[in-house]
């Protein structure tokens, strides 16, 4: 669960008191895990600022950012990167133009992990996974792994950024344990005991299984390998139930710079990925139609406040006209005040 508590952010670029601009004014927002939220609002209403405060690009003046009830306000952007995938409006922003597709993917694969100065950056096993992932995109990128990203079109780069924002190697069991202990709502000691009460028997069972499979002479080499993989998957599944850090995907007008056809393709791709992985997603868009078509919750920002928040069926009934009416109402209110 992601939560903004009483967040205020003001910009003062010139240092002049009259130029103070309030981007967010005591905003409260709760996003349950698994929600796909579309965010609309006029320019300067605080949509992008919200997103930047979530990822840690900007620090709020006051208020808190909570992830699974843990205060992450003081965490730096690179520390939070493990939990957030960010796609920017500018297609050039999310990828390294002078690096090849595979290098970009390798970097994204290690998001939120330590980078070792002694291990070679490319792995054969990773490459297979990248090809498999890229094939789903149907952009022909899987044959161009060694090509520089700079020569690709905006749509391809944005699709690649989307993949980089959603793909991340599975956290190791150690990371799962650490995240569970810090982010679960229970006391740390209780959480540790709970984790270990599952982890230790599971590990022992897996080890016993492994040795029995190895000793079994009736199995061929291939069957043995399959059985071993299956045993590991079972063990892995037991640990994964503690994996709290479901990825959160932040899309900041990510189709605004693309032509209509490519934009549609990227949006459909986004929807597919989000549904497959059940990701918590926040999508800023200026296209009302997209805001209504995708997602199961809609939020409207206006001059640093959330003025409209609908979910589920209520959202499904909304039309573009309704939204425009809301905008007009908000404008009028602002004038009256």
């Amino acid at each position, binding site marked *: 669960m992601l939560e903004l508590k009483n967040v205020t952010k003001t910009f003062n670029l010139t240092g002049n008191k009259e130029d103070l601009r309030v981007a967010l004014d005591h905003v409260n927002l709760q996003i349950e895990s698994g929600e796909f939220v579309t965010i609309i609002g006029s320019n300067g209403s605080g949509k992008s600022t919200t997103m930047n405060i979530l*990822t840690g690009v900007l620090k709020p003046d006051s208020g808190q950012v909570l992830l699974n009830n843990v205060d992450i306000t003081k965490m730096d952007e*690179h520390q939070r*990167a493990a939990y957030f995938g960010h796609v920017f409006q500018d297609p050039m922003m999310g*990828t*390294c*133009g002078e690096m090849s597709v595979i*290098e970009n993917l390798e970097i994204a694969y290690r998001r939120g992990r330590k*980078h070792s*100065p002694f291990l*070679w950056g490319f792995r054969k096993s990773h490459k297979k996974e990248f090809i498999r992932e890229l094939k789903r995109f149907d952009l022909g990128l899987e044959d161009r792994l060694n090509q520089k990203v700079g020569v690709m079109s905006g749509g391809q780069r944005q699709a690649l950024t989307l993949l980089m924002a959603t793909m991340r190697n599975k956290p190791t069991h150690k990371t799962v344990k650490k995240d569970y202990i810090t982010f679960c709502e229970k006391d740390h000691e209780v959480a540790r005991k709970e984790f270990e009460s599952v982890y230790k028997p599971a590990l022992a069972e897996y080890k016993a299984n492994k040795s029995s499979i190895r000793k079994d002479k009736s199995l061929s080499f291939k069957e043995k390998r399959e059985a071993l993989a299956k045993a590991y998957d079972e063990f892995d599944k037991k640990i994964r139930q503690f994996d709290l850090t479901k990825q959160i995907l932040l899309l900041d007008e990510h189709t605004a710079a693309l032509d209509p056809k490519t934009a549609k393709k990227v949006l459909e791709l986004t929807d597919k990925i989000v549904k497959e992985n059940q990701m918590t997603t926040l999508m800023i868009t200026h296209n009302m139609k997209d805001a209504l078509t995708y997602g199961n919750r809609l939020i409207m920002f206006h001059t640093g406040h959330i003025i409209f928040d609908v979910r589920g069926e209520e959202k499904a009934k909304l039309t573009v006209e309704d939204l425009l009416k809301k905008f007009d109402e908000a404008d009028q209110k602002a004038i009256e005040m």
Partner: protein
Amino acid sequence: MDITELIRLTLSMGLPCCLLALGVFLTFRILDFADMTAEGSLLIGGAACALMITKNVPPLIATFVGMLAGGVCGFITGFLNRVLKIPKLLSGIITMTASGSIALLLFGLANGRIFASEINGIDNSKTIFGFLDPKIFHGWQQVMVVAVIVAIVLAVAYFFFGTEYGMAIRATGINEKMAKSQGINTTVTTIICVSISNALIGLAGALIAQIDSGMNAQGATGYLVVGLASILIGETLFGKRSFKNALISISLGSILYFAIIMLATQVFKMPTDLTKLLYAFLIALALCLPMIKQAILKLWARISPPIKRFFKKLFVRKKKKEAE
């Protein structure tokens, strides 16, 4: 002048400058950080090494200390830029200015006089080349040792920038916003890369000090430009398709640069007061080389079809004759 002697002189000047150019390349190209520390760290590296050697420290340790001293200069620049948020160019200039004084202090100590800028001669047997007898190798011992060091540094650099961390550093230089959103601590990567770069420049300084048997306060002036010119010459002539290609290009570029200078000063006996003009000309040439290269390619594209046609005709006629 003897041609082998010319080659030896070129290599003994050019090879240490490969390290210098590589150091400048790491900040200038990979990190996109216009680092002005280079001359400062070269001076400090050379000075520290010279001081150690005059105090009878083993040359290997002295060279290593020179390298470390350069690295510290880089660390300070990185710290000024990243933690104290001073602009890149200025933080380099600050370190360079400070290092001038510190180097003077070091030289002064070595001479027994404080704040003297006089140089301190180093006995060849005390240097890192001392284990090879100069009577047998006739000066080639310097080239051999430095070549080995350059080869090792190039190999390590190639490996390091292919590792996970090296990739993170490269990403920082190309697109910092993306690097941050991918969980790379750009503060640390920048400081580390600037430190490594200046450590290499410090190593170059230490080697130059040992080859020239000493270093003076003005000994490092103009070397930043040498590094930049080497990079530009190398990249335009030998390409920069990949990281490996760029590494080799730069090394060849710096050797080529000194080859031209040696040719002018030693063979054509250019008067010494004109050398500065030659440097300036070479740098201007290096900067406009990409344009010249394109112009030549364009010209070639225009001339080549008739020439090719001509040869084709010749070839076809020959074939016809043979057939007959």
